[in-house]
């Protein structure tokens, strides 16, 4: 079983961080995985994306060109990647920031008002983690148990105080 995930949005939305979190969770589950960011000037405020592959077998190409799971946090990303998703794949849309609906009819679509939910729980920068909570719920790509252990890996000790709010964001997404 191999799941190819593409996460895309604006720089600053925590797209790379969200991918990293999934990667660490997969590592803790003894899965094979790769995480590949887009890099360069576009990261400074332009669009950012990252490819995450989680598998039971060694990962081939780390580049996700046909995602099984697409997570989009802005309209340009939906426009760019919607058609790339494999038939039967899943698209997760931050419906606070993306007003249009997904055109494809051969995929499963989840609309999550992630940015609004993040504001509701007083964590305006954590729409990314709300999306990830929902993705875990709907795809089962990694189990949700011991999710806090993966947070320990990605949230540095210096910012330990942020762990709780990250956890809350994940939970909000997972139970949405």
């Amino acid at each position, binding site marked *: 079983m191999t799941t190819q995930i593409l996460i895309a949005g604006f720089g600053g939305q925590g797209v790379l961080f969200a991918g990293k979190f999934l990667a660490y969770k997969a590592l803790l589950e003894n899965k094979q995985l790769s995480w590949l960011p887009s890099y360069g000037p576009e990261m400074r405020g332009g669009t950012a994306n990252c490819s995450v592959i989680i598998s039971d077998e060694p990962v081939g*190409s780390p580049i996700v060109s046909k995602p099984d799971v697409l997570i989009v946090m802005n309209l340009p990303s939906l426009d760019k990647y919607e058609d790339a998703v494999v038939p039967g794949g899943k698209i997760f849309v931050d419906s606070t920031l993306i007003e249009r609906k997904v055109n494809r009819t051969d995929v499963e679509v989840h609309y999550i008002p992630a940015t609004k939910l993040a504001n509701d729980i007083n964590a305006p920068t954590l729409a990314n983690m709300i999306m990830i909570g929902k993705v875990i719920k709907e795809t089962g790509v990694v189990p949700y148990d011991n999710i806090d252990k993966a947070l320990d890996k990605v949230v540095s000790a210096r910012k330990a105080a942020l762990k709780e709010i990250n956890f809350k964001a994940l939970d909000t997404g997972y139970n949405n």
Partner: protein
Amino acid sequence: MAEKVLMKGNEAIAEAAIRAGCLHYFGYPITPQTELAAYMAKRMPKIEGGVFLQAESEIAAINMVYGVASTGKRVMTSSSSPGVSLKQEGISYIAGADLPALIVNVQRGGPGLGGIQPSQSDYFQATKGGGHGDYHLIVLTPASVQEMADLTGLAFDLADKYRMPAMLLADGTMGQMMEPVELPETAPEMIEKPWAVTGTKMQRKHNIINSLYLVPEELEKTNFERYERYAQVEKNEVRYEEYMMDDAEICVVAFGIAARVSRNAVVEARKQGIKAGLIRPITIWPFPKEAIAKAATHCKEIISVELSMGQMIEDIALASECRVPVTLCNRAGGMIPSPDQVFDSIKKAAGGNK
């Protein structure tokens, strides 16, 4: 067994180098290898005897490497394509003075300033010399973050063993991606280096680190002797990996990120009943000539998959003695071939009789 950790390829090289006993790093900022220098800048000051120095130029950095290598200690520099071009003078001197050192090239698209996206277009530069004069580097090409670490340690060992510079030829993808990696926990055995300059302590004749020989007979002799050593490297140190090659009719040859992509295509081809296989050179100098020659006896076409306008393809053609067609499947300038593109090449090569 050591715990698996998630690391970027660039960071894995840095940590593996430190664990291999390399306590001297000299570099100059350039994308996409910056994480490597940043890691060194953070770690080296915390290690006894550790040196991180941001040099004034790539040229200065490689000459600092030359200085430390002269003292017999493990030393490295890293850069990306345009910066590695600048280092060529120093690399030629290091090779000419028979010094071990590690040069890392996290390649980006060229020529000129080019771009910052991944590329493999420094293959010629890495394997055919790069600088002036007759010399070679041992060139290792990692295809995973684990190999970024493993081949770093190996590069230092081989460089010491054969008294020659080694290069880790990676690309932007390998440098930027994260994968689980297991790092070595034991320090490698270091070999004696009686040739090193360390001060005579008034106990021996002075050692001289030098590449100047004004008498042509002498210079010729050093060249011949060096190539005897290179022959040993070619005999003992060829490394490659074969995948599905036993009964392959179509042979794909690719290294680094191109090999990762090609593997997907080979899997797809096999699913569709095409007997495709993959040879992944791990050393590109020395080049796995025998594996290619063998493939040429039972494959009807060899496809070179490269992130360049076709450079390795020349070595493949030579190694296969042109017994079968050798074709190119490529992207350039920072683009990466997709598994589909490679699969299409395989399908085309297979023709009607799949």
